[in-house]
């Protein structure tokens, strides 16, 4: 039997301060860059505007592309190489461009196409993809995505809260919220373009990370039920994490394998999705150990359970009536 991380006895929990420092620093870094550069790099579907993916016969001079667009009245376009040296994306979405699209989203893309054809010669430029989004649709997609994130988070949180007794539920909820926050910081730090696909990745992560926490907490609950004598909760937590460690490593390995395959092979369009997913796999592991655990400990110390076998039994049965008690226990 091939085994990794078998019968380990790492003291995970005692490192919680370091972990908290790391994660807070990371989130802070995200917030600071957010403050400095302002806003998130939203994709065309959210900002409104025009995106064109253009394939040139031979690698073009970017300055020429820019001057061509400027001459055509498409000022402030973002021109970026996309994959190979002959492929570029052009994003026209400064205020003027977006406003022009209120009258009809197709106008700007036609102007760009015609200008490029004229400057580089017909047949030397192929437009392989066009996305043109009017400002109203952009605003709707933006609010739709925000609503989706909110509702999905809410559903997940409610599910977690119902699934466990309130202490576990609260810890799981906070840990999952932490994951979302860290993922936002990651997106901001790497300046990943936030599209609907990336939103999809974040929502998938939500489920994935909640799942990780659920598995460890299930084990904690089980170990509590067994009634490990004289063991502190932090000891039980450590033991539970160690016991589930092989599982965590293995599931993350398989998920990561699929994610890396996407990251490397699936092309430019999917890359932001794959990056967020890959990062999320690490975050899910990290938070289920270092965020969910310590928070649970903290909650338990603030609102301790009643000592003795009766308390444990009640806890194991998730007794919902306990919800009212902490106030008096204080």
């Amino acid at each position, binding site marked *: 039997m091939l085994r990794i991380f078998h019968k380990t006895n790492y003291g995970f929990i005692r490192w919680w301060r370091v972990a908290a420092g790391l994660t807070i620093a990371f989130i802070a870094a995200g917030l600071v860059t957010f403050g400095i550069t302002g806003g998130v790099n939203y994709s065309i579907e959210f900002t409104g505007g025009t995106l064109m*993916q253009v394939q040139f016969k031979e690698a073009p001079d970017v300055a020429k592309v820019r001057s061509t667009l400027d001459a055509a009245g498409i000022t402030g376009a973002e021109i970026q190489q996309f994959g190979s040296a002959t492929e570029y994306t052009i994003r026209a979405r400064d205020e003027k461009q977006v406003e022009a699209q209120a009258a009809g989203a197709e106008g700007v893309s036609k102007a760009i196409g015609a200008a490029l054809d004229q400057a580089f010669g017909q047949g030397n430029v192929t437009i392989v993809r*066009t996305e043109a989004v009017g400002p109203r649709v952009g605003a709707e997609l933006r609010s739709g995505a925000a609503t989706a994130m909110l509702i999905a988070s809410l559903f997940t949180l409610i599910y977690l809260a119902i699934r466990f007794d309130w202490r576990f539920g609260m810890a799981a909820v906070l840990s999952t919220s932490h994951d979302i926050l860290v993922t936002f910081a990651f997106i901001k730090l790497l300046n990943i373009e936030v599209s*609907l696909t990336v939103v*999809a990745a974040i929502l998938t992560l939500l489920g994935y990370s909640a799942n990780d926490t659920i598995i460890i907490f299930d084990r904690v609950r089980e170990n509590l039920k067994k009634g490990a004598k004289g063991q502190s909760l932090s000891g039980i937590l450590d033991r539970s994490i160690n016991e589930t460690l092989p599982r965590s490593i293995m*599931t993350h390995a398989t998920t990561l394998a*699929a994610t890396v395959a996407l990251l490397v092979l699936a092309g430019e369009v*999917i890359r932001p999705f794959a990056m967020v997913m890959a990062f999320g796999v690490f975050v899910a592991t990290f938070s289920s150990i270092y965020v969910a655990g310590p928070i649970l400990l903290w909650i338990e110390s603030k609102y301790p359970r009643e000592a003795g076998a009766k308390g444990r039994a009640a806890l194991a049965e998730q007794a919902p009536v306990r919800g009212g008690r902490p106030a008096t226990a204080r």
Partner: protein
Amino acid sequence: MANLKYRVLLIAALFAASVWALFPRTVVERVKRDGVFVYDTVQRVPLKRGLDLQGGMHLTLEIDESKQSVANKSEALDRALKVVRQRIDEFGVSEPVVQKAGEDRIIVELPGIDDAERAEDVVQKSAFLEFQITDETQALERAVARLDEIAKAQGIQVAAAATADSGKAPTMASALLTQTDSTKKDTTVAGTTADSAAKPPAPPVGGLFSSNIQPGQIPGQYIVPEKAFPAIDAALRNPAVLAAVPPGKVIRWGVDSLGSGTERFRAFYVLDARPIITGEVLTDARPNTDPVEGNVVQFTLNNEGARRFKTETGKHVKDNMAIVLDQKVITAPTLQSAIGRNGQITLGGGSLQAAQDLALVLRAGALPVPLKVAEVREIGASLGQDSINKGLLSLVVAVVLVIAIMIGYYRFAGALAVLALVLYLAYTLAMLAGFQAVLTLPGLAGFVLSVGIAVDANVLIFERIREELDAGKSVRMAIEEGFRHAMSAIVDTSVATILSGMVLYQYGTGPVRGFAVTLIAGLVASLFTAIFVSKTFFLLWLDRSRGTQTLSI
């Protein structure tokens, strides 16, 4: 073990059904052959590919209320939907989608379209046809001073770069036009009234209108140099300017720019606001090629329309009648005699295809409300194919990696998990085919990802079995316990992620919806394969090797 037999039977039956659902089959499809659409049978895997994978065009059209508000939107949208659908059907695309979205939008999906601009035009063209007599009273000349004042007050002027030339351009224009102007006067405008022949008041020098427009070849037509076009166009959209346009008249631009060489000109027309007839009385329209006129669209009117058209054109013989499509003047021929039921629209230099498209939109009828494009997504077929290739490659690599990890670590049990994974792939794809779900690029990515997540449940179970074995339980007991304990966690994962997927489906657009569907289908399939299928495999193995005390896991 009867129970086990049924389990195996169920799994096999489902697998057979999946394979059948995914087997390439012959379907009747509209395909393009030598530029013509024909119905044909083709062999293909019955999985619907989204526009981002097969190439094509997605259009979101929206009721345009920028010019006038629409009272009964839902009714107008229903009628617009019918018109758009008819146009698309005649346009000829394989498997188009035309559907309502929300209360003021129409979604049009045209897979495999290769001339996007033309498609857009056909869909969006209001096709509101009007026949209007051009102004012969020189109403504009009399209003030009007032228009100049308003334009000045509104701060509308020709852009700085252009003003330098503006002095020169009109002179060129008049030089160019004087000749034709005079000849034209003899032939067609001979009958102008004395009133209009009277000299209009001299316009103030330097005004926007007075310095940039020149009378054209026919009464009511005016020529503007290309450089002044944006300013004049802006002025003509300005409400204050519009209010000063002579009552009972409207101003409409011509479709094309005119002139030769480097100097280009635009023409606009002053027309009687009341049209003689509109496109509503049209019953048919056909493209044709006329030896003299070039490409034309011949139209037929209904009884009432024909009667009105005949009376009105009879009154205006020798006048010019502008044919106005979507507020742009296509042509303004001189009426030689009264016209009855049948008429034709000369397209000037238009191609036969332009005539075909115009006939098509006129036949399908005008859109009851103007529609504007709110969103366009256009993906080339080659890019779509490229995405499919890359997606498949990453799928294969992901599967190989996962197989390697599972068999490398869990050995025999891992092999059972891999077998379950194969079933998982078949079940998921079959579900997608069965529900006619659309496979998109994000969907493909979700599918690849789900391969990694699908074995999750197996890992959970296997680790638990190992622990139970460590605790000294028998192989059979360990397997039972392993599945029992892992169950709740597996259900939890699936529920949490399915919830996310459903929300995503609700709020996402096309490609992301594809992702949500794939995710949900994958989770349902993995629930089944992890809990039911792999357990059956273990039970089978236990059955085959009774008394075994070691399990390769």
